[in-house]
């Protein structure tokens, strides 16, 4: 079983003085998969990746690649390669020399190097770029050269540190697909770091959401999106409307939450654990889970109607974005702003600001999480 794993981390810790950048992280990455680590800036992603590459020694824990512990093994002896955030192509060499660098270091004969460089250039669709200078390439081409330079060494694991960060949006969208495709073809295990959730969701087989040095949740993109296990994941992955409130009553797996701003919402627990009466909770509802109707009724706060959570409000802003268009609706009573997706059928294409809307969503679409801030306060008290 364990030799099916390309990469394994066991209780990895890295501290800089008193500050713990990576806190007790464990992960297992099966062979040939595309694994992403997603987290906000400063959460410790790069630190973790640099430990995998060997540039930083862990404070505690172990890194195992293909069954061998990597502790004390220098970066040039590890069967992993890294694609740097700013690519780090060598400006003093042309494209072919850049890509052939690792093979030259392995003392492979030059004709063989030339052949393999040509092959890999072919694979990243830059067949004629070999003799070009690095600064003659476009951003996307450079990207591919950087990846080719690592891939040619056939590493067990390829580490990528936000490699798309420097590209413009359009190119980023394009490269996402291309990277995924490439990984599929070569079958190398990719460990991909990003703070952009869409990159992580689109490309990955598995994603780890990281926050303040810890893994919040590891799972498939669908799992993370539809079944977030912590308030952080629910808020960080995908867009959500957010309320805070207190649990008023519990009925089976449902609970009534009295919102701090007024009104009630029926919700299910986001985690597997059950909810306790009086708990301070955070509530999340995705914009696309909300059904809208035009309404003339008076302004009501959040309440339950026909077994559904219901809310009326006034359209404040229309955010047209083609299939991804949204409206921002203001609950006149509490002032809470709710974002809703407009149906792709175009049914509401004539919606204008100022119109009244009735919003409703089923109970199981409202996920509640015990608020960590509140939990801490209670402990302190």
């Amino acid at each position, binding site marked *: 079983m364990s030799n099916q794993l390309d990469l394994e981390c066991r209780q990895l810790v890295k501290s800089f003085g008193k500050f713990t950048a990576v806190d007790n992280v464990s992960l297992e990455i099966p062979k040939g998969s595309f694994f992403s680590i997603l987290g906000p800036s400063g959460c410790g992603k790069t630190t973790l990746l640099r430990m995998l590459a060997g540039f930083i020694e862990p404070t505690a824990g172990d890194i195992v690649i293909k069954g061998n512990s990597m502790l004390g093994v220098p970066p040039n002896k590890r069967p992993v390669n890294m694609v740097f955030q700013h690519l780090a192509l060598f400006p003093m060499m042309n494209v072919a020399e850049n890509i052939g660098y690792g093979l030259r*270091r392995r003392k492979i004969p030059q004709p063989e190097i030339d052949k393999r460089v040509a092959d890999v250039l072919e694979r990243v669709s830059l067949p004629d770029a070999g003799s070009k200078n690095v600064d003659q390439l476009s951003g996307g081409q450079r990207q591919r050269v950087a990846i080719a330079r690592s891939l040619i060494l056939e590493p067990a694991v390829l580490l990528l540190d936000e490699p798309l960060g420097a590209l413009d949006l359009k190119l980023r969208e394009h490269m996402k697909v291309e990277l995924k495709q490439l990984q599929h073809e070569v079958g190398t295990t990719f460990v991909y770091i990003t703070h952009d959730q869409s990159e992580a969701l689109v490309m990955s087989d598995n994603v780890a959401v990281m926050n303040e040095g810890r893994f919040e949740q590891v799972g498939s993109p669908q799992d993370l999106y539809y079944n977030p296990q912590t308030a952080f994941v629910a808020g960080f992955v995908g867009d959500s409307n957010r309320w805070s409130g207190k649990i008023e009553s519990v009925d089976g797996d449902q609970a009534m939450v009295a919102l701090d701003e007024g009104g009630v919402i029926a919700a299910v627990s986001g985690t597997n654990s059950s909810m306790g009466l009086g708990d301070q909770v955070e509530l999340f509802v995705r914009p696309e889970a909300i059904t809208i109707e035009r309404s003339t009724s008076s302004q009501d706060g959040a309440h339950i109607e026909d077994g559904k959570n219901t809310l009326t409000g006034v359209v404040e802003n229309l955010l047209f974005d083609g299939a991804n268009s949204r409206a921002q609706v203001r609950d006149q009573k509490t002032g809470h702003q709710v974002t809703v997706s407009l149906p792709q059928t175009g049914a509401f294409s004539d919606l204008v600001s100022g119109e009244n809307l009735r919003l409703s969503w089923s109970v199981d679409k409202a996920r509640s999480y015990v608020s960590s801030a509140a939990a801490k306060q209670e402990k302190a008290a």
Partner: protein
Amino acid sequence: MSSAEIAVSGTEQRSVIPTLKLGTFLLMLPLLLWLLLLIILPHVDLLIVSLREVLGYREYAFSLQNYAEFFTEPLYWNTFVRTAVMSILATIITLIVGFPVSYYIAKVMKGRKRNLLFIMCLIPFWVSELVRTFGWMILLRESGVLSSFIQWIGLVDGPVEFLYTDATLMVGLVYTSMLFMVVPLVSVLDTLDDSLIEAAYDLGGNTVSILREIVIPHAMPGIASGCIVVFMLTLGNYLTPTLLGGKDSLWFTEQIYNQFITRFNWESGSAFGFLLLFLSSAIVFVGLKLSRQTLADTVK
């Protein structure tokens, strides 16, 4: 493509120049005057002096004799060769010593410590070259600090003379030149992205190969400019070779000084001056060609 760009900017310039011309000229006037009066005119004067032969009191004739003498009298030629070889050697040693220091300053040290180290390279320059050289003399002479010290710890029985040898001269020259090597190297190494080194390491490079294939090619313009400055300074150094060098020590600038000041022979002094200028430029030119650098690269 780039030629098209040049053509475009060329036409642009042509249209702008007439309006700017007078203003620019007036702005440049002090500089031009300074160049003309203090640099060009004296050189022209020296050139004329170098091309004449003294026939008698205040009697001169045009002649290339002063230049011919340099090539026919082995003494002068040997002095020049010795000076050039010692300067090249001093430049190489300064580079070999200065490179790790610069690398350490630019890439390993951070914050306060880094500034401190940099300032330590500057300290020798807070005192004049004369004082600095006398410092070496006090340290190295037979009755000096170093000699006393190694007698005290029992390494030797009698006093040892460290002064007046080529090795001492070399130490003095390298010490004097250090800063002029370290400054361009630190600034060029500063611009080397750390991730390039890491990437090379990650791709299987080791310290030696990274140095050879990544760091040195990147630092080449800095190396070239540092070497040019150090070479020229060493070649033109007067105090250090005369004070630290031994009784056999010959230095070409000393020769020029002698011709001018103690021999009153301005004619050959000027000729030697021009020969020094041309021969050293030739050496620099060959050096640049060998390292495949251009002068423009080094001032980037």
